[in-house]
């Protein structure tokens, strides 16, 4: 089953918001768990598109990368 962008986007945002109290950054695997029947590469395409639309941003420690909603939690602008 191919992923429909708008539906998947809604599901991802809903998931992030449901965890907003305790977490602002998520691993890639947290999102693949939302779509157990889909291939990781397809989930990545959705996430990449959301990054390109500036809904999500990448966060990295240098060794591992996480995703978060733009503006949520600590980020570069907040660190100035």
């Amino acid at each position, binding site marked *: 089953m191919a992923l429909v962008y708008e539906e998947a986007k809604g599901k991802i945002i809903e998931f992030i918001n449901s965890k907003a109290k305790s977490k602002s950054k998520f691993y890639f695997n947290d999102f693949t768990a939302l779509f157990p029947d889909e291939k990781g590469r397809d989930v990545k395409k959705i996430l990449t598109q959301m990054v390109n639309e500036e809904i999500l941003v990448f966060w990295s420690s240098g060794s591992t990368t996480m995703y978060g909603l733009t503006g949520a939690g600590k*980020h*570069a602008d907040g660190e100035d």
Partner: protein
Amino acid sequence: MAKHKTPLLDQLESGPWPSFVSDIKQEIEHRYANPKGIDYQIPAECPDDLLGLLELSYVDGETHWKHGGIVGVFGYGGGVIGRYCDQPEKYPGVAHFHTVRVAQPSGMFYKTDFLRQLCDLWELRGSGLTNMHGATGDIVLLGTTTPQLEEIFFELTHKMNNDLGGSGSNLRTPACCLGESRCEYACYDSQELCYQLTQEYQDELHRPAFPYKFKFKFDGCSLGCVASIARSDMSFIGTWRDEIRVDQKAVAAYVGGEIAPNAGAYAGRDWGKFDIKAEVIDRCPSQCIRYEGGKLEINNKECVRCMHCICVMPRALKIGNDRGLSILVGAKAPILDGPQMGSLTIPFIKAEAPYDEIKEFVEATWDWWMEEGKNRERIGETLKRLGFSRLLEVTGTTADPRHVKEPRHNPYIFWKEEEVTGGWNKTIAEYRAKHQR
């Protein structure tokens, strides 16, 4: 003149080795003097404050860097490692001190005009400090501010025909030895394979979707100039499957002292007459070489391709003609359960364009690790947790004695139904026909 007193760092300069402190001090003077009249885009005091902050860390015994943050330019999930200092008022020059990773040329071949462009760019838009090269192999540009990142990226891609490297849970910048370009031992074109896989997996390099980091490294032969067996999650090491080529006349010349062993290396001292038994025959790890009656014989079936004999007598012994590479999986540094070397997974595969077989193996491995790997788990750890046989299964690799590292410690082998002829369905009558009650 440096603005911070750094007595603890100054002490580091007193050792016999080249000192990073001296290097940074040199850049401090250079930036303040600014002989070329550069319109610095980040504070001129950046290297000065860097030393000041480091001195403070030495005094306090703890770091003053915050960890993580911005990761790249727009659309990239890696290539930049965000660094912010937690004393920005005292050390404004390093309030932002992001690291930029830049893909190094294959085999580290540089043209001077490229290096000049790179240094000019980094004097203008960064601290002027570089690390050639980082542990992964990239060109590491140390210290810039957030507004400079897109500018640097534009210059790198549009004017220098280069790209950012990998960081975070990405495919890291692949690295290779100089291979066939200068080395007679290269069993495949390591630069070409490195380049082709880099191009093929651009998305994996720039957009993180792995559980953790993943490194490719390419050694043209088992001498391993890039030490891929220890430094990469997937290591490609050149090998051959026919016979070492032997030139008996040249062997005799080595024995007779007409040719210097080890291509003349170690010649600074008198090691005495060349002793083929002590230096070659007895050093063969699988004891597969014999020298009798002036003739050198190699039992190639037992040869483990360590290449020691070839290194000692390079004019007499040469790599075989049927060449390819071995693929090893799972090396890593000791973050979790200790360091690990790569495990031999594909003993021999031909390395010929368009490298489809190799790509199939890579993708099958990734699919499995992306599915089964835990967050922040290297593939070497997934291998240990789920077992090497799982990797063989998912990549369609047939188990082989060369996969065995050592005999089993426990005597139990659990067979799966599909591995047993006829499965579990056997009739008792069939059994009783051969075995009495």
